């Protein structure tokens, strides 16, 4: 009976002061939305990051550290320490434990985007996210020597369509002075956005990669020795080396044994890494930052809760008459104190509910836009336990801080005399 009275009084009181409290509630809502949003994004970005590449059991490259190998093969950051001989790649193909191999040949760029030389197995076996395959938004995979498939980000940024002719540059960097001007490539396909570095690269065949480098053995084009597309027709371009290999195994249980065998390969020094392990190691390096961000947001919520308490304490002086009436009518100091706790809790719950709705709206509106413009994969999903816990901590914190005005009201109303305070 008393609890119901307290709740109905608190509700009426909140409604009565809705104009002032709406602003406080708005502040709290925004800060809770920020907190929830950052926690949500943290999970999403981590998910998106660690699923940059999936289903690939091993990445094999020249001997180097696992982060380095991961960075240049998957993220197209930095350069390879060395190449793998073509013969080694052929030997790997003979290994019965290995189901499929994707050769990767790096080194050139197109207006700042990496050129990846590969073969048809890339389109067939490469997986990202939760095992999603690459799909073409338009056109088809490269077939001819001078065909190129563009990542979604490249096509969007440079506004390319099918059948555009593009000139690749030798080496990395966005302003290269040595271009493969004799051998323009034709866009035959454009990939769907993936939200991974795949979007930020262009794909050609290993033959194409080899063909444009005929006559470039010294690092620059030697006039007269480079090929024209006409000369390239019908010739066989077998590369002498590739940069790295993505491998998928028949039986995952053999992953570690194959990795050890490759690391001890006698033909040349190789490194084989498990992409999942390397990705989480890389994420650990960056998680300090996102933790700090979450911490800051936590403080924003605490600040707005303190603001809420400041407002409630200010309102307390206005409420002296009402408290006097309730006390004289027989309400206990505990009931008066509980009004503050209920009001504070109600405000926090309202703020949480609104911010939940707000976040849902924002994520569902911005999700597709983020993917196409920033390659960030943020999908609407049910909250996980950690996020629910974070959300639930807001009303809990509100109750804790509400103890301040509640205690002061309790103390005041215990010594409350008849009539208004101050009168005797």
């Amino acid at each position, binding site marked *: 009976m008393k609890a119901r*009275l307290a709740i109905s009084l608190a509700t009426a009181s909140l409604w009565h002061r809705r104009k002032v409290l709406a602003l406080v509630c708005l502040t709290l809502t925004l800060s809770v939305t920020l907190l929830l949003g950052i926690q949500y994004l943290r999970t999403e970005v981590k998910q998106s990051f660690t699923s940059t590449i999936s289903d690939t059991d091993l990445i094999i490259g020249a001997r180097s550290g696992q982060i380095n190998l991961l960075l240049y093969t998957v993220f197209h950051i930095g350069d390879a320490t060395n190449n793998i001989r073509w013969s080694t790649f052929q030997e790997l193909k003979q290994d019965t434990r290995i189901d499929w191999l994707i050769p990767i040949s790096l080194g050139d760029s197109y207006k700042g985007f990496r050129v990846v030389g590969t073969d048809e197995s890339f389109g067939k076996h490469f997986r990202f996210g939760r095992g999603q395959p690459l799909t073409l938004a338009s056109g088809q995979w490269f077939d001819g020597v001078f065909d190129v498939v563009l990542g979604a980000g490249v096509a969007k940024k440079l506004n390319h369509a099918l059948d555009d002719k593009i000139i690749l540059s030798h080496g990395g960097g966005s302003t290269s002075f040595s271009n493969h001007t004799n051998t323009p490539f034709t866009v035959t396909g454009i990939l769907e956005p993936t939200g991974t570095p795949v979007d930020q690269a262009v794909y050609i065949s290993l033959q194409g990669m080899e063909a444009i480098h005929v006559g470039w053995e010294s690092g620059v084009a030697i006039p007269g020795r480079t090929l024209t597309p006409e000369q390239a027709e019908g010739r066989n371009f077998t590369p002498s080396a590739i940069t790295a290999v993505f491998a998928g195994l028949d039986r995952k249980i053999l992953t570690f044994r194959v990795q050890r065998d490759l690391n001890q390969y006698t033909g040349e020094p190789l490194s084989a890494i498990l992409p999942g392990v390397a990705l989480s190691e890389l994420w650990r390096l960056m998680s300090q930052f996102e933790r700090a961000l979450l911490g800051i947001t936590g403080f924003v919520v605490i600040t707005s809760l303190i603001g809420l308490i400041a407002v409630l304490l200010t309102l307390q002086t206005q409420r002296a008459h009402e408290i006097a009436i*309730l006390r*004289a*009518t*027989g309400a206990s100091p505990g009931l008066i104190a509980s009004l503050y706790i209920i009001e504070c809790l109600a405000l926090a719950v309202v703020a949480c509910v609104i911010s939940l709705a707000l976040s849902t709206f924002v994520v569902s509106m911005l999700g597709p836009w983020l993917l196409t413009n920033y390659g960030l994969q943020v999908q609407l999903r049910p909250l996980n336990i950690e996020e629910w816990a974070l959300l639930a901590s807001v009303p809990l914190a509100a109750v804790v801080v509400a103890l301040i005005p509640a205690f002061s009201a309790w103390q005041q109303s215990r010594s409350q*005399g*008849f009539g208004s305070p101050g009168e005797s």
Partner: protein
Amino acid sequence: MNSQSESSTQRPADETAAIEVKDLTFRWDKHQPALTFPDLRLPQGEHLFLHGPSGTGKSTFLSLLAGMLPPATGSISLLGTAIQKLGAGKRDRFRADHIGVIFQQFNLVPYLTTEANVTLPCRLSRTRKASTGETPASSAHRLLTALAIPESHWQRKVTQLSIGQQQRIAAARALIGAPEIILADEPTSALDSDNRDRFINLLLTLAEERNTSVLFVSHDRSLAQRFHHQIQLGQVPA
């Protein structure tokens, strides 16, 4: 502090009095002199007019009677219960069950409707609720009708009403559930003379119907003749 009793009639002492006060003193803190209050005995159903100029401790006296402040010495017996011996929680419950209060002004909870203000005591006390003999709402409606509050005001926020109406609503709140005692602290000081006389007549008539004792505090002596007893608090300034 002197006091003089002008009680007209004396009832037999064995009957349980509504209010009985003996040797009552109070001090706000150790350094201030104690306020002393007159002994008094108010039989059930009779009304007492307590007269005293400002600063003579009228509100303090009511706070002591209502059990909201603890006395320094002396005893307060309401309906045979020594309230200064009760714990804080029991005093609150006793007040909810047996005492109606009317203040000088700001009598109503601003965010409740007229009806919700009147039925407030029934929500704080089962005894008061049971004594209505019907639903608190219908009891409130009868009281509001008797106190001439138009029906159109019943579901309205009380802040839109005139002072006279607000004081009458406060009276309805004090009367609902027929408490044995009503403590009224200068309830008419903000009213004009017409409203004041009407208010006192209605309050006392309705209290008599319920056998409720009214302790009425005012600095306006002209109101005293409507009461069975009157007491002077403090010295009248020369």
